């Protein structure tokens, strides 16, 4: 090994992290070459001096500023998340209202609604909203199917009830069946059918779609028994998004006292 070759290996020799295997011949050269020894030792000396430089300590301001900045970011992250949640909730509620509002007008209007004119021109929408509406439209179609089956064909209450109860036995009812249950909860004239539909929805309370459906149906419901059952459902499902609606019920003195008490109890639990 000549001097040039040896000096090319100095980097490896000086870097403590590298394996020592390949450095034996450099060491051998160093032992016999005073010139390379000088070179090597000056580099090693420089590195030692560099490593020995005292570490400067930051002043207290750095820590103070860091934690102030962290707090600020935490707050803004929390408020962004809250705003997004509010937006999603408002968004869903609006969509459901848009879907359900025409349904209350009676069987004839319903027929027309589902026959063709059901889709009112929607307000300006972004792509995500359009997609959401498209998927809700599919659900409305299945709601329409239920309506067609129950209301328009005048089947008896007990038969409609059997239809609803049949879904309870299904281990994994599909999305369409769940939409049917929400449709029954929203539309069926029989208290028994609506209550059974709600009962059948319990196993699916972990789906945001189901909770928002029940929540959207709550203001339409007139029967205190069903209202209380819906409130219990939302509270059991821990749906924080029900809070504004429950607060509205508590404040509304025209609503049955039993219902307002249930809403107040529910608010305490949410």
């Amino acid at each position, binding site marked *: 090994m000549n001097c040039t070759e040896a000096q090319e290996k*100095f*980097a490896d020799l*000086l*870097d*403590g*992290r590298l394996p020592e295997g390949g450095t034996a011949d450099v060491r051998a050269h160093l032992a016999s070459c005073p010139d390379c020894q000088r070179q090597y030792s*000056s*580099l090693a*000396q*420089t*590195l030692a*001096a*560099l*490593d*020995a*430089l*005292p*570490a*400067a*300590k*930051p*002043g207290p*301001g*750095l*820590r103070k*500023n*860091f*934690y102030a*900045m*962290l707090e600020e*970011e*935490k707050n803004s*992250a929390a408020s962004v998340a809250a705003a997004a949640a509010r937006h999603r909730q408002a968004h869903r509620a609006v969509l459901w209202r848009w879907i359900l509002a025409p349904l209350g007008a009676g069987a004839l209007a319903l027929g027309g609604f589902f026959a063709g004119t059901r889709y009112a021109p929607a307000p300006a929408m972004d792509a995500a909203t359009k997609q959401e509406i498209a998927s809700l439209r599919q659900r409305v179609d299945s709601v329409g199917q239920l309506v067609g089956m129950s209301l328009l064909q005048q089947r*008896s209450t*007990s*038969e409609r*009830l*059997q239809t609803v*109860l049949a879904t309870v036995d299904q281990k994994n009812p599909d999305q369409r069946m769940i939409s049917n249950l929400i449709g029954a909860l929203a539309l069926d004239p029989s*208290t*028994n059918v609506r*209550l*059974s539909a*709600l*009962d059948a929805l*319990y*196993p*699916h*309370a*972990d789906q945001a779609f189901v909770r928002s459906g029940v929540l959207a149906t709550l203001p339409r419901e007139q029967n205190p028994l069903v209202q209380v*059952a819906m409130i*219990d*459902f939302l509270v*059991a*499902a*821990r749906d924080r998004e029900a809070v504004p609606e429950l607060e509205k019920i508590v404040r509304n003195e025209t609503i049955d006292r039993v219902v307002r008490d249930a809403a107040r109890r529910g608010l305490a639990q949410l």
Partner: protein
Amino acid sequence: MPVITAYPEIRVDSTPFVVKSAPDAVDPATDTLTDHELMIAVRDGDLGALGELFERHHGPLYGFLVKLTNQRTAAEDIAQTVFQRMLKYRHTYRDDGSFTAWMYHLGRRCAADHFRKHNAAPAATDPASLQDHADDAPHAGDRAATRDDHALLHSALGRLDRDDREVLLLSRFQELSFAEIAAILECSVGAAKVRAHRALRELRDTYFRLQKEKPSLS
């Protein structure tokens, strides 16, 4: 036709169903987590975990920045910006990332931005400003000499190109591999090694020249 007169009893309490609730906030003692795990937690929304990372790393980062910039105030500003950017860009932290490498990568970028914004190169060495550095010379009599030696080396460091200074300082952090240094500098491992060694030779030459020029500094 069956006539159902009573609707089924609603068994709120006994109906089995699972409501997916948010998992209980798990708060394991953060000091048992690796840097990488902490940064993943930050990325996933647990911003508080950055506090532990700050405590672990702001000292070495600041030390690096002081040597890089030769300015204590600038080093504090830049270190602050580094942690700010960790928050701002936390979503870009990768599952296969190395926290330390990422931190020095940000440090390097922030330093470059700092000097671009202030339209100034790192200050030429001002040994006087470094006199207040703590030094660990065990004997009072050695202190002045050691301090002068540090000042000389600072001075020599200050005369390197910033790129050379950067790669040399990074190569002396034992916690960084050359693969990580190469990633920080966005070059190959081989190039990082060559640059580090070339920078060391530069520093050596300047350091020894200054020693000869200023024998009477003490």
